[in-house]
């Protein structure tokens, strides 16, 4: 079967890698047409990936399992890259700055590459264990990953800010095309606000689910605690704007630290710590 979801996902991996390369070329060599091409390729990628996700959903029904493709590490990585691209495309469309693509699309292509090429990741469709059989599965995963993806983009913007800030004198060349620090600061803030709402909803839906499944909405399980740590970090970013001397560079740093915390919540907890979310490691 060539026209399967896994085939489409492999294709997506290469398309996103290509798109990231095109965005980089567009930034470094400042060729307008390459930027346009990068957007076209990215849009093509998201269409193929969306079809892939839909197909995988159908395939799980054909296997008799019948669940949304959001149930293990492989599927979550695919979904993470999907949301990252969606969030990025919305920002590109709103801000009309393709340079951001060079800092945002690599997250999506890395996620797909990890899902596709890592030998430790099971890419087969598996049946749902009893604990995952809940209507809250979709709500919980979707909200969490909307948060994660926004924070990935915010991290990319934070890196841009620090690069731009470092070479603040240069108004020409590859630094010249990076948007102004003031604009980046506002974008970082907006993206964090957006991500924070989804992270909060992700934590709440997780709590409701845990209350349904285990009878405790909060049990200080490492995954829960790390999501709270991430929440604290971004809450810091949102309040730091009101403290003199914290806006700008420090918030850019927080956007990077925050994303590191997201990554640890996502992977670190599964691989390094033990807890209730162990099915995420398979």
């Amino acid at each position, binding site marked *: 079967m060539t026209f399967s979801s896994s085939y489409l996902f492999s294709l997506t991996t290469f398309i996103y890698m290509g798109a990231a390369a095109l965005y980089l070329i567009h930034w470094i060599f400042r060729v307008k047409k390459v930027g346009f091409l990068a957007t076209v390729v990215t849009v093509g990628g998201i269409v193929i990936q969306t079809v892939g996700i839909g197909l995988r959903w159908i395939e799980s029904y054909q296997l008799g399992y019948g669940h949304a493709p959001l149930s293990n590490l492989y599927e979550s990585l695919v979904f993470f890259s999907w949301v990252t691209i969606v969030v990025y495309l919305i920002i590109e469309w709103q801000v009309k700055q393709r340079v951001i693509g060079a800092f945002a699309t690599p997250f999506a292509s890395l996620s797909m590459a990890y899902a596709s090429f890592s030998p430790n990741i099971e890419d087969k469709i598996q049946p749902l*264990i009893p604990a995952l059989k809940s209507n809250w599965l979709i709500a919980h995963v979707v909200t969490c990953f909307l948060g994660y993806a926004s924070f990935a983009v915010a991290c990319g913007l934070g890196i841009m800010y620090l690069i731009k800030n470092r070479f603040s004198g240069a108004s020409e060349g590859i630094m010249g095309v990076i948007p102004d620090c003031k604009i980046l600061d506002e974008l970082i803030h907006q993206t964090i606000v957006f991500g924070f709402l989804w992270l*909060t909803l992700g934590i709440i839906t997780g*709590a409701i689910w845990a209350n349904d499944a285990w009878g405790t909405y909060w049990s200080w399980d490492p995954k829960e605690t790390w999501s709270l740590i991430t929440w604290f*970090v971004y809450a*810091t970013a949102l*309040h*730091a704007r009101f*403290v003199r001397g914290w806006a700008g560079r420090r918030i850019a740093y927080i956007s990077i630290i925050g994303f590191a915390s997201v990554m640890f919540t996502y992977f670190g907890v599964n691989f390094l710590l033990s807890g209730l979310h162990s099915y995420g490691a398979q």
Partner: protein
Amino acid sequence: MKASSSTYQDTSIWRFFSSVRLAVFLLIILAITSIVGTVIPQGESLQFYLERFGPGFFRIIKVLHLNDTYHSWWYLILLGLFSTNLVICTLRRLPFTLKLSRRDNLSVDSGRLLKMPFKKDWEIKEELDNDSTQSIISAFKKVAGKFHERSDVDGGRLFLAERGKWSYWGVYGLHGSILIIFVGALVGLFLGFKGSVMLPEGETIDHIVNRQTGEHIPLGFSVRCNRFNISFYDNGAPKEYRSDLTVLNDDKEVFHKSIVVNDPMEYKGVTFYQASYRAIPEVTVQVAKSDTLKRSMTISAFQKALWSEEQLSFGLMQYMPSVHGRPAARIRVGDQEGRSGNFWLLKGNEKEFQRGENLYRISLSNAKQRYLTGLQVKKDPGVWIVWLGCTVLIVGFTVVFWVPHRRMWLWIGRRKGKTVVILSGQTNKNKLQFEKDIRKIEEALNSSLGARQ
């Protein structure tokens, strides 16, 4: 002298607790210290920590309660400080918010309007007739919405369309929601309980065991497990754990529910969750002393079966579901004097054994798995307060970040023998959308006034 210095101190403590700087500091400290409990395993025995971390680090763990980090004195102090900061920070904003929400935005003069972030004015030589004035006002209303009017402001008419003035209250909801969640957690802690029970199929229980203290908690009613069932996928992974439960009140069946993971049973505020299970073997043996004196005995693991008339006790020591395709059980037979012996029984085969003078024949007639269902049981009257807090948190957050306070003014008056029209506006959020909207009014006014300038 003394009084003033104490007042000064009061205000300085007040100031300390009301600063956003402290909030940022506490958030960072909470983020960092919360890591501890995810790295050090929580809730183990003290012996475990001593063996794992050695005596030096063990002392630190004991003093700082790192075996239960999130309920330790210092973590609770941090959360207490955080709440205090939250309350005082929010209270300090109150006079400011009150001023903002009470401010009469119609009491501005035309000069102030020209200092707004967005402003545009038109000057026309002739006086505006009623129709043109009306068309300007309706163009303003079409985009700006409902408005208030005050006549005789700087000798002209002032119109104000204001939206989202209430949004300044959003931050109180947002911050208050955290406190609501804390209250909900405390209510659950003091008025609720958490426990568990292993309930064999067919048996009834009227109390549960407290998870932390091991105490028995009476339920006030009884619960019977009628049946436990487990099903598997083709690949061997578990598909469903299901317990069929009946609630009894004074031996009367009052409620029934079949529960699975993610679908618990709730009765009188107590919730029963499918948590685990255990399978124990159960065999039935036929014991005969003579052709007329015989008995059928059911023996479960960990339980003795008695034939009291003959003063014999039977126990199940070992069970194998399939020996040469047949179930086999190792049966222990004891008598009054404490003598005992054991032997293997294969289904279909008969065995003889002697106790005192008597000779008995025994055979295995039936063997099956008997299940115990593991239930988590909890009562938490605070959970709805927590959900209320979560709802307020999301609504408050949305208001704080996405509901703008927008003001649009229109002034029509005369100055130095000319008719002057001023359009101005201000918003505290989403300036892009605001500018788009107010430009629409500007364009409409341009087309009706521009030609006459």
